[in-house]
């Protein structure tokens, strides 16, 4: 403990912190400001350059003309006057309003009914959305021999006396949005199930007993012991998360909607992409700004809804299952998950079965006929592009994952433990940053990349991924590091002579969270389509390669299915292996 006076002074300063077991209060004089800013600078530069500045630039472009002159709201007027804009806006809002409600209701029912089966529900989240799109496009194929979804719909219509040839079609203009939403719900249901289960586990059971002892019915128990104390807030957060997530329905719409129905299916994202090629000027920028504003409202809602911290985990999670509960409801509760599991599994089954047909059989006979043939896989694997793309995607995903963890861990530590001034604001900014859709800022992002000479390179592509993934990673790691028990931190502070040492000794406590962040980041990059579409240059990521094959279905269904299965294996394996950490990470990162 010998050193120059300045070191000793800092050590003295540190003792102030040692006293503080929990996160320090901002008002306290804080001695490690320099260190905190060192930890936060890299990520601040990255997010500032690749997210904040481009957002500001987009907003500016929406208010200025081609030569940079101020035009007030003229761009907005032009954009809104264009044919179909209002329909597109309405559909975007519909997505953000309807899908979260469905996801929450279904997710809650599943969360209360059964403990098992989480993996099955979590697995869809591991799949690329392009694969989900392919899967449901095959499932909803208008030919009843091939598309099981269509067969069910025709049968249902038959019950109401509608003849088969005038039954509605899933991919037709009336139902296309419903079909798309169902695919989205399928993919996202795992999130609310996991989060609600964690919430229910944290709930004190005596509350329910208290309500019951006062003669409360089942509904009263739900309202007073579940909804009001806890679930309302959880539901609000899940709502916001899913609503923000619907901005990513872009991939699904492009893959699933047939050309004739694209107009009926298009959301803002699709329209902006189709008509402006992500231009950063004029009416397109105005639409982007509107989109950002809507997302901003969502973020504020999430911040307000989730302002109260998650209640600390209660040590004894006893599921509320009173003896008197054995009623018809119990039967429903037992049957529902099995039913949903079946419904959830059928599209996967259809995809795998289709991939085991030759392309000819897949097109003419449908997946329900028995066939175990690998010719579709042979067709796919014969393409050099696939092998090259697999390598490229794997290296990209791994590098991005390493970079994200390397950047987010120090930042999370600084925000959780050092809490420099502005920590609370940084939290809100991070939530906002994780909601920015990359299409909105593509143009300005590239101005930045060009400035540093990285436009069109794999490194530039990776950097965009890092910037998009880092906010969520910081949030998860911040929460995990804030949860590290005080005693552990105190030990670390005493043992670690320098700040780095303290950081290094605290990290092991956050290993599960680091694994969760790494896995989620890897999966996200592996599954990406949009970033590769906009910024890919030197190589073709897998998502883009698969998307390119989806111009024609039916004739191409066998090979498409085989490709989709192959592309899904790595993310699925990773998620299954790390499911515990992922679930904990999702709960902590998503909810707080």
């Amino acid at each position, binding site marked *: 403990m010998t050193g120059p006076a300045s070191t000793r002074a800092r050590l003295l300063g540190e003792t102030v912190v040692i006293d503080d077991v929990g996160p320090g209060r901002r008002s306290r004089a804080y001695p490690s400001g320099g260190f905190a800013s060192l930890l936060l600078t890299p990520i601040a530069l990255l997010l500032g350059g690749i997210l904040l500045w481009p957002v500001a630039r987009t907003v500016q472009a929406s208010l200025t003309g081609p030569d940079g002159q101020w035009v007030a709201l003229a761009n907005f007027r032009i954009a809104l006057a264009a044919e179909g804009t209002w329909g597109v806006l309405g559909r975007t809002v519909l997505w953000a309003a309807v899908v979260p409600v469905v996801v929450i209701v279904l997710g809650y029912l599943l969360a209360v009914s059964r403990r098992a089966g989480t993996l099955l529900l979590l697995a869809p989240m591991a799949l690329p959305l392009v694969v989900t799109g392919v899967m449901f496009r095959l499932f909803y194929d208008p030919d009843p021999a091939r598309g099981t979804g269509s067969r069910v719909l025709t049968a249902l219509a038959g019950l109401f006396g509608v003849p088969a040839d005038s039954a509605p079609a899933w991919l037709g203009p009336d139902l296309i949005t419903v079909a798309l939403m169902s695919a989205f719900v399928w993919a996202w249901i795992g999130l609310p199930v996991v989060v609600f289960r964690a919430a229910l586990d944290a709930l004190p059971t005596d509350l329910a007993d208290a309500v019951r002892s006062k003669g409360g019915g089942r509904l009263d128990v739900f309202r007073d012991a579940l909804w009001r104390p806890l679930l309302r807030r959880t539901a609000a957060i899940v709502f916001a998360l899913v609503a923000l997530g619907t901005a990513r329905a872009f991939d699904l719409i492009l893959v699933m909607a047939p050309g004739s129905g694209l107009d009926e299916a298009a959301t803002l994202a699709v329209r902006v992409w189709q008509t402006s*090629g992500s231009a950063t000027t004029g009416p397109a920028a105005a639409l982007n700004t509107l989109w950002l504003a809507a997302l901003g409202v969502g973020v504020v809602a999430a911040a307000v809804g989730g302002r109260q911290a998650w209640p600390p985990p209660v040590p004894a999670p006893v599921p509320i299952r009173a003896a008197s509960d054995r009623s018809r409801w119990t039967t429903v509760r037992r049957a529902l998950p099995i039913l949903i599991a079946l419904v959830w599994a059928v599209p996967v089954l259809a995809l795998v079965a289709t991939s085991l047909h030759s392309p000819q059989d897949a097109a003419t006979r449908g997946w329900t006929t028995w066939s175990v043939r690998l010719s579709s896989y042979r067709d796919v694997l014969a393409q050099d592009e696939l092998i090259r793309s697999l390598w490229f995607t794997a290296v990209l995903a791994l590098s991005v994952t390493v970079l994200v963890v390397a950047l987010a861990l120090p930042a999370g530590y600084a925000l959780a433990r050092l809490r420099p001034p502005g920590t609370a604001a940084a939290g809100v900014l991070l939530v906002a940053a994780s909601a920015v859709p990359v299409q909105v800022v593509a143009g300005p992002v590239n101005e930045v990349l060009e400035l540093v000479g990285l436009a069109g390179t794999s490194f530039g592509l990776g950097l965009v991924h890092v910037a998009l993934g880092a906010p969520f990673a910081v949030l998860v790691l911040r929460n995990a590091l804030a949860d590290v028990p005080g005693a552990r931190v105190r030990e670390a502070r005493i043992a670690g002579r320098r700040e780095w040492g303290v950081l290094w000794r605290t990290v092991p406590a956050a290993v599960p969270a680091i694994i969760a962040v790494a896995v989620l980041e890897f999966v996200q990059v592996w599954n990406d389509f949009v970033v590769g579409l906009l910024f890919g240059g030197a190589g073709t990521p897998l998502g883009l390669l698969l998307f390119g094959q989806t*111009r024609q279905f039916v004739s191409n269904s066998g090979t498409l299915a085989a490709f989709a299965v192959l592309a899904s294996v790595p993310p699925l394996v990773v998620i299954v292996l790390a499911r515990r950490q992922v679930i904990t990470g999702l709960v902590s990162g998503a909810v707080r």
Partner: protein
Amino acid sequence: MTSRRAVLSGALGAVVAGVGGCGRSPRAVQVAVVWSGGELTRFREVVKHYPRPVDVVSTRNDIDAFLSTRYRTANQPDVAIVPQIGLITDYARRGWLEPVPAEVSARFATPWQEMLTVDSAQYGAWVKAAHKSLVWYSPDRQSEPPPTWAEFVSMVQRLAAAGRPAPLAIGAADGWVLTDWLENLLIGFARAGEYQRLVDGTLAWDSPLVRSALGQLAAVWAIPGAFPDGIGRALITQQEESIIQVTEGRAAMVVEGDFVAATADKFRPAGAAPLASTRFPAVAGTRPLLVAGDAAVVFNGSSSGRDLVEWLTRPTSFQSWITAGGYLSPNLLIPPEAYGDARAVTRAAELRDASGTLQFDLSDQLRGSLGGPDGLGSWKILQDFLAEVTRPDAVDRAVRRLDRAAAQARREAGS
């Protein structure tokens, strides 16, 4: 502090090197195409023979959005193979493209050269052509469709009244299939120069020519039972599926280009004869000859792109696709006999036709969003027209929409 920073930046550097490493291998020449499925596979086989690695990216129909985004973000591909000639004009005027050398442009007949000429320089070279005035049918089940439009209409009526199979398969989920129908009729009805004036925008869409063409389309499309499982189903049937409907015997005929042959052969049931084709029926005395093509353009400053396009227009480059079938080219260096198959030889010869009746695909030449793609412009308007073709005012509504879309496209071009 310095040493810590060094450690950190060292770690970052290692990752940077890792990412950079995969980019350091000789950069593949990147080509953006709209092809997918069989055509994409064929094209990849073609470029396998190129001495350098070629990275083929399929953008599906949204190639304009893709190329615009990539160009703005300065990571455009070296070469794009574009079917919409209107786009090539736009890009060339914006200065995005390089003109092709005279040596390459000399490989095409004059009308084909002119299609790619913008302000007296030729941008792009044809790598594939499509003969789009064909009716395909299964000779096992169906006699050859008649040579005049009136007879064709009554044949469709007769077949529809007889029930299964339905007379026509139509891949109406792909808007370009419908525009091809319309264009064949427009060419048939057009007096000298009228068709070209529609392209230039000097002839209004609300004109007798467009009205009579749409009216004749309605005369066929509105026949009850014209398509298998009705119009609603036709609108979500893709072009390649419509071919399979014919090979499987669910429909008698399909109207589309020479490229139908490749898909039809792939899905031909064992023992069935290959699909046969005949020219689109004569509308007002003359048989229309509608052609389209895919042109390879080189983006500014890409020398590897320049080399690739030169190679793609050599006579033997596309040999593997020619052998596989479903490929035609306007390239004069490829003699029609090279196509081997008798059908293809005839079609290839017709593409060279010097009599001047050949017309290029209209929607491909239209500027801005009027041309398409999915969900936009003429593609979408014709899909809506088909959806409501049984309404008495269907033609009026389609004409009005076309006029509005044209005005909008002009506004966009002006802004």
